């Protein structure tokens, strides 16, 4: 009964509208005495509002109306749409990245339980240091709030079976590692948490490697594969797309192709060597803070039991895996996100201004509609719908632009933001765009609505719509001031980022990267160190003999190469052991030709030479940073230093500490980051401290990529089971080290240009409107003897006044914001005068451009036209 009544009304309002209207008319006419002064149409309108069908229809009509209104003024629509598309597009692109990198949960089972455990040495400032096997064992036994703790270290290995030998990244893991991540293998199984393997006899392959090297062999599980030094059995294949998400600093490559178990072998290595990265799964319901408490207890117990932990005052810190993986890129991304937000804000301000301007041009129209019975709600709705239609179209086009933008970002630097591989227009991104769009529509709708609430019917109709309401002028002036302010902040941000990039490009990394080819090589497993030494000497000589090659050298770690770092304590002669805490250096084992090949400058003494033999006097070369710190004001050459060396063993090498003579000082090499001198450096002679694999640098005058095949041929000739990998020009490493700065600077610059453009459009809109409103006044002034030039100046002054106020606020804003940028800057002060001057100039230029056309129009003001216009 009840719902039939409702259905009947809906039916009538949708399909019997004419009859309904007629009946309503008749009903109300019969009650004319009751209606009196209220107005027949108004009463009708409020009755109509009770009918859902009519509401729906009128909504639809309003949509149509909004659409037509927009098309009636294509110039306005184009400017407003263009503005919106830029704003929404920039935000879609950046938010796609922010979502993929910062927000989307890691693709593991219950990722919120996963956390990394770092050693923390506050004295030396190493806050995210790896742990040692012994610490790992203690943490695993002593913790109470973790389901399990696993360890990983990524090194290299070489596949030898098959046509081409191939060097791959090998993740050495405790057997529980993959199980802890709850990986479901594509084939076979992963290692069982308590499995024992003896000595490296099992592997789990990545999907990509399985497909590429083993042709996707479905029978591969259980087969042995040939690798240098071992012939492990394949126990499983990882699922497609499996990746490790660790921060760059942790040196755990995302794309390890092979997983091998550590097993007992873990505890054969020196127990105190810090190289393990720990991944933990917290028990269900345990929070990060609780887990950290637990770890504090564990660390205290360890310090009580082991003197070395007590001496170093080792602490343990916990970081959620997701948070830790993005620790380095987070600030830059958030800054860019904020930048995109500012651009959108400017875009919104512009569109609001345009709509506002039009709304006041339409005051007569709106007043007329009110007189004809349209309720205030209906008018507000129409204005809101116009905003919505505008935003809707803007959003569709903006998402398109954003998609193109994301593609462009991807092509910029795929390996810097590795998670970018997963960037796309996911639902949350589209949701974000929808929210932004709706928010913008509200914002636009509100401004004109505010205006129309102060609508006074009679006055508006009477005055003929020629003078701008003072309230409206104040609002749009405020909007312009805001725009100038936001624009200025963005230009400052971009300027600082560009200067940072320029500084990073100008920095000398401690070598000359041009014309150097680099590659990695695992040395052949020869029976004695002497044999390996002879092999390396012979190999370097052969490379040197290649056409165009000037110098060849090997190093345990290429600078900026991103392989597991080697850093350890050192102690200059005369410093007592208990005062050496905090003396930590990067160690590099290099062959005599290395400094020549890299063109690293010698500051004092000599480079290594053929005399620095195994078994001879131990020598080191240090960098100027260490020399200055250890022996300020003195020559370092001839001084003695306790440094770490390696000695060959059956399974590779082992670390020892020994007194060594400093024979030379070289310039500091930026091993980790172009913008930071992270640690001083100690170089040991490779023959005295062997390590494998070696990174080789070949300096050549010829084409580097033509050199690579020649190197491969040379290697195949002497040992067909060896393979070179990571064949890259040294400049590539430098380029990718610059990538974060380039990325940030480029995007910041794009945003700044957008902001300037939009601000100019905004200023144009407001000034142009004001000129058209004042055409009469201008004409009168001209008739009274003002020159065109006077009028132009007058109009420009109006724009410049707004700009000046905006600039003052902008400087305050920029000062506040640039302090937040501090960590992203290099070699430039956050209040860099040059940047501020340029930004100032850019804003003035944008204002003048924005004022130009209206001013020119003012100059052409014609007294006769002005008087006729009324």
């Amino acid at each position, binding site marked *: 009964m009840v719902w039939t009544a409702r259905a009947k*009304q809906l039916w009538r309002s949708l399909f019997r509208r004419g009859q309904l209207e007629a009946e309503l008319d008749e009903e109300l006419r019969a009650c004319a005495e009751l209606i009196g002064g209220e107005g027949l149409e108004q009463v009708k309108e409020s009755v109509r509002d009770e009918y859902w069908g009519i509401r729906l229809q009128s909504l639809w009509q309003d949509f149509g109306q909004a659409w037509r209104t927009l098309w009636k003024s294509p110039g306005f629509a184009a400017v407003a749409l263009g503005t919106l598309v830029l704003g929404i597009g920039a935000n879609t692109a950046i938010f796609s990245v922010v979502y993929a990198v910062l927000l989307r949960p890691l693709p593991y089972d219950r990722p919120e339980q996963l956390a990394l455990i770092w050693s923390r040495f506050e004295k030396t400032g190493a806050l995210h240091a790896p742990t040692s096997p012994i610490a790992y064992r203690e943490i695993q036994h002593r913790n109470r709030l973790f389901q399990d703790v696993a360890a990983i270290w990524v090194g290299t290995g070489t596949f030898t079976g098959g046509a081409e030998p191939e060097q791959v990244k090998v993740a050495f893991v405790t057997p529980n590692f993959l199980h802890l991540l709850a990986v479901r293998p594509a084939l076979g199984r992963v290692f069982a948490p308590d499995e024992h393997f003896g000595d490296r006899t099992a592997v789990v392959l990545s999907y990509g490697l399985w497909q590429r090297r083993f042709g996707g062999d479905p029978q591969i599980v259980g087969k042995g594969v040939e690798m240098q030094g071992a012939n492990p059995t394949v126990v499983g294949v990882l699922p497609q797309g499996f990746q490790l998400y660790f921060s760059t600093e942790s040196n755990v490559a995302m794309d390890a192709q092979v997983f091998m178990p550590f097993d007992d072998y873990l505890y054969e290595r020196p127990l105190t060597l810090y190289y393990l990265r720990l991944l933990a799964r917290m028990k269900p319901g345990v929070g990060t803070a609780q887990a950290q408490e637990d770890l504090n207890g564990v660390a205290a117990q360890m310090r009580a039991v082991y003197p070395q932990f007590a001496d170093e005052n080792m602490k343990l810190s916990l970081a959620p895996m997701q948070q830790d993986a993005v620790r380095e890129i987070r600030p830059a991304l958030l800054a860019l996100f904020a930048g995109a937000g500012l651009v959108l804000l400017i875009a919104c301000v512009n569109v609001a201004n345009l709509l506002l301007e039009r709304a006041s041009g339409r005051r007569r129209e709106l007043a007329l509609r009110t007189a004809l019975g349209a309720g205030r709600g209906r008018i507000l709705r129409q204005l809101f719908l116009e905003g919505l239609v505008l935003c809707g179209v803007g959003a569709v086009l903006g998402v398109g632009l954003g998609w193109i933008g994301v593609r462009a970002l991807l092509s910029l630097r795929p390996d810097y933001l590795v998670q970018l591989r997963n960037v796309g227009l996911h639902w949350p991104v589209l949701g974000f765009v929808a929210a932004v769009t709706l928010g913008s529509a509200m914002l636009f709708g509100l401004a004109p609505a505010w205006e129309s609430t102060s609508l006074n019917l009679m006055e508006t109709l009477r005055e003929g719509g020629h003078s701008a309401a003072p309230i409206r002028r104040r609002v749009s002036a405020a909007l312009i001031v805001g725009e100038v302010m936001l624009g200025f902040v963005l230009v400052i941000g971009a300027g600082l980022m560009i200067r940072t990039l320029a500084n990073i490009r100008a920095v000398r990394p401690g070598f000359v990267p041009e014309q150097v080819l680099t590659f990695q090589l695992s040395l052949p497993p020869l029976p004695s160190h002497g044999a390996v030494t002879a092999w390396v000497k012979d190999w370097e000589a052969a490379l040197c003999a290649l056409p165009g090659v000037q110098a060849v050298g090997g190093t345990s770690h290429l600078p900026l190469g991103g392989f597991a770092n080697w850093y350890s304590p050192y102690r200059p002669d005369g410093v007592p052991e208990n005062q050496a805490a905090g003396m930590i250096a990067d160690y590099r084992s290099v062959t005599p030709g290395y400094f020549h090949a890299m063109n690293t400058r010698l500051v004092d003494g000599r480079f290594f030479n053929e005399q620095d033999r195994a078994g001879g006097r131990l020598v080191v070369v240090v960098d100027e940073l260490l020399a200055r710190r250890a022996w300020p004001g003195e020559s370092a050459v001839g001084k003695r230093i306790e440094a770490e060396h390696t000695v060959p063993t059956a399974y590779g090498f082992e670390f020892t500490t020994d007194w060594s003579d400093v024979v030379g000082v070289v310039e500091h090499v930026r091993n980790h980051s172009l913008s930071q001198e992270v640690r001083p450096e100690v170089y040991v002679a490779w023959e005295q401290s062997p390590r494998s694999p070696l990174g080789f640098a070949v300096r050549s005058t010829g084409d580097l990529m033509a050199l690579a095949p020649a190197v491969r041929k040379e290697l195949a000739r002497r040992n067909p089971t060896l393979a070179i990998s990571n064949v890259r020009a040294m400049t590539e490493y430098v380029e990718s080290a610059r990538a974060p700065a380039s990325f940030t600077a480029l995007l910041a610059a794009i945003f700044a240009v957008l902001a300037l453009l939009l601000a100019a459009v905004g200023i144009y809109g407001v000034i142009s409107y004001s000129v058209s409103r004042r055409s009469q006044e201008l004409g009168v002034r001209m008739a009274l003897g003002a020159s065109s030039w006077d009028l132009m100046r007058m109009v420009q002054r109006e724009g410049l006044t707004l700009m000046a106020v905006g600039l003052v606020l902008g400087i305050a804003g920029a000062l506040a914001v640039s302090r937040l940028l501090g960590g992203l800057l290099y070699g430039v002060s956050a209040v860099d005068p040059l940047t501020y001057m340029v930004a100032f100039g850019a804003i003035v230029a944008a204002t003048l451009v924005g004022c130009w056309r209206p001013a020119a129009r003012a100059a052409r003001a014609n007294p006769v036209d002005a008087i006729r216009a009324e």
Partner: protein
Amino acid sequence: MNKPSEVLQGTLDLMILRTLELRPMHGVGVAERIRQVTNGVFVVKAGSLFPALHRLEGKGWLESQWGQTEEGRRAKLYTLTRAGKAQLAAEKRNFRRVFHAMNQVLEGE
């Protein structure tokens, strides 16, 4: 209490239902009746009355048909339905409860 007041929000529906309980009436009749009964305290405006009548009809509490007013004019007459009677009873109870509570608050001062 000389100045007529606008009908309290929410009580208009109740008053309309109560008025139509007596007999079918057209819009003017309802407004007149309310004014008389309240001695001119409540004045129902057309802009509130007609939307309310149509709304109550939509809820199924009123029915309308064309008929003659007492003066013999053709007009749309509204009748209370069974559902409308039930609703009126419920609203009366509710209003009394609220009114009683309100009184206690005022007396308590």
